[in-house]
């Protein structure tokens, strides 16, 4: 029972180290720190995978049911996506962002209750891993695209105003950031769409109705429309650059609220506590 918590703590520690390394890369421009950060983070990711498997074995169900598990899984997906991006784009600044975000998720996850509870029978379905994995894959990809969009706007403003800070030289080119933003959208959007659809199918199986206007569903739909608009704008209207970046940021804020805000602020079926009381 304690094994998964032990692994969790090791993961947290490694993520902390890689966050420091990536921040060092950005602040002091050390290439060795970047390479080291990448390998440390990769190591942390492997340990994280073990953490998830161990928890699955110890609890007997996919560890995606409470705040602790959910945030840990989000951090896992985020790090995984970032490592993939880093292989191709080499963006230390994005690393600093992704690592910090993953670390923050891990810390909140770490201070949330970590006991393994009896699984709510309503969640006892193989739809649970399918639905949650797809949704979180989308979340993680869009978190990366959010980081890229912020970097794009920062740099675009410097290029337009012709006032450059020391940060300027550490940012990748506009083209690379815009490209990354688009790639994230084209992978994140299908993941998110399928996440919503799988949720609806599961809802039909569990509660007999595809859609019940639960706050989570409503907000997910709003977020989905925002990303759909962005994809449409990019594909058909020729949106790119600044405008696309701004929309990616708004959509991610909306997504963030859908993920955490709804759970913490609004009552509903997806609320971790509500489920326990049912």
């Amino acid at each position, binding site marked *: 029972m304690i094994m998964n918590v032990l692994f969790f703590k090791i993961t947290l520690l490694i993520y902390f180290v890689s966050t420091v390394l990536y921040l060092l890369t950005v602040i002091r421009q050390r290439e060795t720190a970047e390479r080291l950060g990448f390998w440390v983070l990769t190591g942390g990711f492997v340990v994280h995978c073990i953490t998830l498997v161990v928890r699955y074995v110890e609890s007997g169900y996919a560890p995606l049911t409470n705040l602790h598990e959910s945030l840990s899984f989000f951090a896992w997906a985020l790090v995984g996506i970032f490592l993939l991006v880093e292989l191709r784009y080499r963006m230390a600044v994005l690393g600093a962002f992704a690592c910090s975000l993953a670390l923050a998720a891990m810390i909140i996850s770490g201070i949330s209750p970590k006991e393994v509870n009896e699984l709510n029978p309503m969640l006892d379905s193989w739809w649970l891993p399918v639905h949650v994995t797809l949704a979180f894959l989308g979340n993680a990809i869009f978190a990366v695209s959010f980081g890229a969009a912020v970097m794009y706007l920062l*740099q675009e403003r410097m*290029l*337009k105003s*012709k006032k*450059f800070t020391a940060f*300027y*030289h550490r*940012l*990748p*080119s*506009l*083209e*690379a950031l815009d*490209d990354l933003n688009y790639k994230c959208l084209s992978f994140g959007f299908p993941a998110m769409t399928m996440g919503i659809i799988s949720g609806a199918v599961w809802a039909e199986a569990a509660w007999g109705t595809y859609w019940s206007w639960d706050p989570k569903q409503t907000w997910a739909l709003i977020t989905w429309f925002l990303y759909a608009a962005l994809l449409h704008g990019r594909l058909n209207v*020729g*949106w*790119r*650059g*600044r*405008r696309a970046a701004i929309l990616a940021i708004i959509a991610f804020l909306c997504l963030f609220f859908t993920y955490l805000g709804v759970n913490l602020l609004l009552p509903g079926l997806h609320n971790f506590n509500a489920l326990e009381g049912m």
Partner: protein
Amino acid sequence: MNILVVGLSHKTAPVSIRERVAFPPTAMEKPLHEMRALPSINEAVIVSTCNRVELYATSNQPDVGIHQLKSFFASYHGMDLEELESHLYDYQGADAIRHVFRVAASLDSMVIGEPQILGQIKTSYGYAVDFKTVGLILNRFLHKAFSVAKRVRTETNIAGNAVSVSFAAVELARKIFGTLDGKKILLIGAGEMCELAARHFLNNGASSITVTNRTFDRAQKLADEFQGRALPFEEFTESLHQADIVLTSTGAPNFILTEPKVQEVIRKRKNKPMLFIDIAVPRDIDPKVNKIDNVYLYDVDDLQGVIQANLKGRQKEAKKAEQLIEQEIGKFHDWLSSLDVKPTIVQLRRRLQEIQQVELAKTFGNLQNLGAKEKKAIEAMTNAIINKVLHRPTCILKGGHGGEPGDNFVDPVRVLFDLPAISADDDMRSLETTGD
């Protein structure tokens, strides 16, 4: 042996002086030989560029040497020393080493980090090699200076960011487009600045160049040079949307590109980003164009601003380079001080005496029944061998051989007998008293 530097640079002398004391590259033999023939000077190198004229030499009498170098400098160019003196600087020992390392690493240049100076020193050194005015020390010294310059270049970011208009433009384009591969350039106007910038873009991967100019012939000529395409001036707006990077330098009194026009172009390009570089004064492009999404407009002042910021960055890097150079000076100075004749003779004798002691101990160990008398005789014999062996090397080191001064044999002797380098802190006097 001491390294000497006498010279002047853009920091100490105006161009009106620098041009009078320059040594033309086509006639280096005479000054090099005359300098080398000065009585106190052993080796000679002359570096002459448009920003600095410097004499590098080695001498056993540094103060006399510097005076003779100064007199030579003035008289060679038919000037009075009094007139020149105030512009001249001189260095010896570690200061001379530091100065040359700094010059080679481009820390003393007008534009810090500019790459030409290293090549210019290499060429100057090449003349000295051709005319045989360099020997062991300056050879080693200048090669060291080249490697220090290389270290500075690779380990600091001193040459990192662009400090010329055309490079600054290329750097901006990289920031926007990532790579320049396959990017299309449009030149409007055939000015010299534009041409230079276009060349940099091509060298950095841009795929094609189109040139337009009010006089079509000039456009055609320039296009031929870049293997590009010429466009009649009246038609350029129609193909403007195909260009990723636009360079303008026409003499037009008014804007040739206005905001609505560029807005239309960017729509036609489906918002693919464009970079406009306006080098013309008065400007060719309405500054409002910069407000359009995905369009970046830089005029001459903007580029100058970028350059100024980059220069500041270079000055920061120069501080790192200075530290690096200080380390290298220490190392080189140690080597140089070990080249003195006297400690070398002492060390050489000591080395042989060490061997003698070891071998004697071995022999006496094997021959247990030797008496004190026999032992003394054997010792005396080995002493005699050492003295005979050392006689000629010592004479040559002290007095030279075949027209070459003794100093030139110091390094070979040190290599042949594997003598350890004397560090600068070693007390030389202790060596002297134990030896002779």
